[in-house]
């Protein structure tokens, strides 16, 4: 059920345009694709756990394994370099500490619910556990969440994952984003027309695995559905 390249834009490859990118951009993107950094910040155990968490935050089971987009290495690299985003919420610990605390909390919840570690509880249970974080209703590790607001941790985690995933050309091909465009430029600005080198959308029935719990939309923190704006729960 997996494809080499899932997405509604069959055959679209942004990297094929790379000779029309400026040299520096090409260098940066190719470096991102070809030189995935090693794990340096997380311990081996943390890395395994974190890898499993990332697989749920941005699952890729519909894509052939050899084309998977690396996520954990980029979070690890940011932690290793301790590079920030320019601010810290007062009630939050620094990001490095937040990740360590968050992983501990996830382990504790798994132990609390299943008597086993997160890695041993099965895909569906893992999904459901993470959903309790999303909903802001963790069944355990309350002392950790007292030191770190769960919603802020959740946002940190999801943001880091999407930053890694959607900065990769494979993800651009999946969603039909044109990628770098200098000096490449665009000429068909209106009505969503594709450039000559882009691909028309061809939709197909794309579905998440049946037992997943993340293919639905509920507000972070699990407030009532009305909070997310009109039609907040549709997809």
């Amino acid at each position, binding site marked *: 059920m997996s494809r080499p390249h899932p997405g*509604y834009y069959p055959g679209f490859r942004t990297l094929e345009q790379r000779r029309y990118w*400026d040299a*520096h*951009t090409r260098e*940066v*993107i190719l470096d*991102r694709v070809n030189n995935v950094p090693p794990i340096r910040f997380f311990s081996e155990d943390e890395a395994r756990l974190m890898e499993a968490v990332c697989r*749920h*935050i*941005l*699952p890729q089971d519909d894509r052939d394994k050899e084309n998977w987009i690396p996520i954990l290495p980029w979070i690890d690299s940011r932690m290793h370099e301790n590079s*920030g*985003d*320019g*601010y*810290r*919420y*007062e009630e939050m610990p620094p990001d490095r500490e937040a990740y360590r605390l968050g992983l501990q909390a996830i382990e504790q919840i798994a132990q609390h619910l299943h008597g086993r570690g997160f890695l041993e509880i099965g895909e569906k249970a893992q*999904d459901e556990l*993470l959903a309790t974080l*999303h909903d802001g209703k963790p069944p355990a590790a309350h002392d950790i969440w007292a030191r770190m607001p769960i919603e802020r941790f959740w*946002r940190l985690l*999801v*943001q880091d994952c*999407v930053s890694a*995933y*959607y*900065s990769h050309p494979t*993800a651009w091909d*999946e*969603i*039909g*984003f*044109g990628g*770098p*465009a*200098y*000096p*490449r*430029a*665009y*000429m*068909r*600005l*209106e*009505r*969503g027309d594709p450039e000559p080198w882009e691909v028309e959308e061809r939709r197909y029935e794309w579905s*998440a*695995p049946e037992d*997943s719990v*993340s*293919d639905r*939309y509920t*507000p*972070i923190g699990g407030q009532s559905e009305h909070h*997310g*704006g009109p039609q*907040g729960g*549709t*997809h």
Partner: protein
Amino acid sequence: MQTIETPMRRFNPDEEVDYAIVGVGAGGGVLLQRLARAGFHVVGFDAGPFWDTERDWVSDEKGSHQLYWNDERITTGKHPLALGENNSGKGVGGGTVHWASFTPRFHPSDFRVYSQDGVGADWPISYWDLKPYYELIERELPVAGPAYYPWGDPHGYPYGPHPMGGVGDALIRGCTKLGIGVCAGGPVGILSASRADRPHCIYRGFCIQGCKVGAKASTLVTHVPDALAKGAEIRDRSMVSRVNLGNNRRVNGVSYFDRDGREHFQKAKAVVVAGYAIETPRLLLNSGLANSSGTVGRYLMVQAGNVVLGRFDQPVRMYKAPPAHALTEEFYETDPKRGFARGFAIQTVGPLPIAFAKQMMAAKGAWGWGMRRIMMDYNHWAAFGLLGEILPSADNRVEIATDQKDHWGIPVAKVTFNLYDNDQKLIAFGKRKTIDVMWAAGAEEVVQESRYAHLVGAARMGRNPETSVVDSFGRTHDVANLFVCDGSVMPTQGSANPGLTIMAIAARTADYLIEQGDAIFSSDRRDMRPPKFRRDLSPPDTWGHGMPAL
């Protein structure tokens, strides 16, 4: 494509310069250029690098992280602000390097908010004081927009409007359907036709990642080259830690850390702080200066910047065309029927994939398979931004965090922010109106994310030294040769993007300083007469392009 041809002047380390300007962004860049052109010895400091646009910038979302102020700051309050990429720049050009470049003027009413609505504050100057400077800066950038712009003080723009992208089309469709006036193709500081060595826009959509094309105006490409050609020096990667108070309640220079972390002192006859609304109050507070009123750091403002996202049946591909290319100011002014003071604008925004994914996380709670699903529809979404006026409050402020220092050892800023009643009513109304427009444009699903845009205030100007930090020329009430020249001097903020106004204020401050001449360096006397307006201080090539003013 910016090339600095003149070798930069280097002042002798022991030389006392006329002006030390801290921060070379929107305000500092314009001021630096004018003071240099008038023959003053002037040094600009910037904590970030002097960008080489071709070598340092990329046409990539993640790779542009370096453009923002990424050093730590603490954010708190009931509605804590996201900082970093949202509203700060670091490096020569400052925030203008990654602004979307919407350049509407403030309305005449913005300068009289207290008189008209009984809230906020009045400015010590009026719109008409700034008007000639608006016109001047609109030529210097130059600004592209319609020949007739109907809101505020109606005016036309020197460069023609831009073509529409998918998001602009949606805004035009939605607004016209609801009978709301809307402006297509500007006003934006993006070239719609080439000028000198700057090519025109190629509609690649990476405005807020730094414009490699050189089409989007930033002081780095519009003013800094002329400043250097006229003998200004810029010390990049130099973090000013302190403005030093000398004898007779006058400052005599600044302490700074150079790129290697060595500390130096630069003597100056006068100091201008232009570090924007967080670093300016931080520097003043860390230096213990200009705060006899206790207002330094207070009255910090952001604008409501809710993003309303609509999914359309037909593809939109909102990554094409500049994020900034259409807007309406139909709701800008106070309308008593709405039950709150002041108003808002609705503008196009065009988030790229990572920003869009974050918005979907916030707006729909998306993650996992749901995130993948919604992102596969990225090309079907359009986004509008609300830009709503939030009123100044003394408790929204920048303070010094007592327990945390940055890697230079300078105490960091702590930013506290809360929304108040009028703000919340305004946001609720503006959000609803923006959502209405999105529906009217033909969206089949509409969601929104609450967020904020821009940062101004925190060293506001005013006539009364007990309630403000600087006078109408940016001179601190406490110290006669210490000035502030950036967005932090604004007493209120309207619902217009602040960049153009910051530059206009800087141009006016420049006229004042140049007219006062040596008096600034030697006398404590304050001449409060407005300066004579000068149009001979513009960078070369300002004149002879574009349409004559209507």
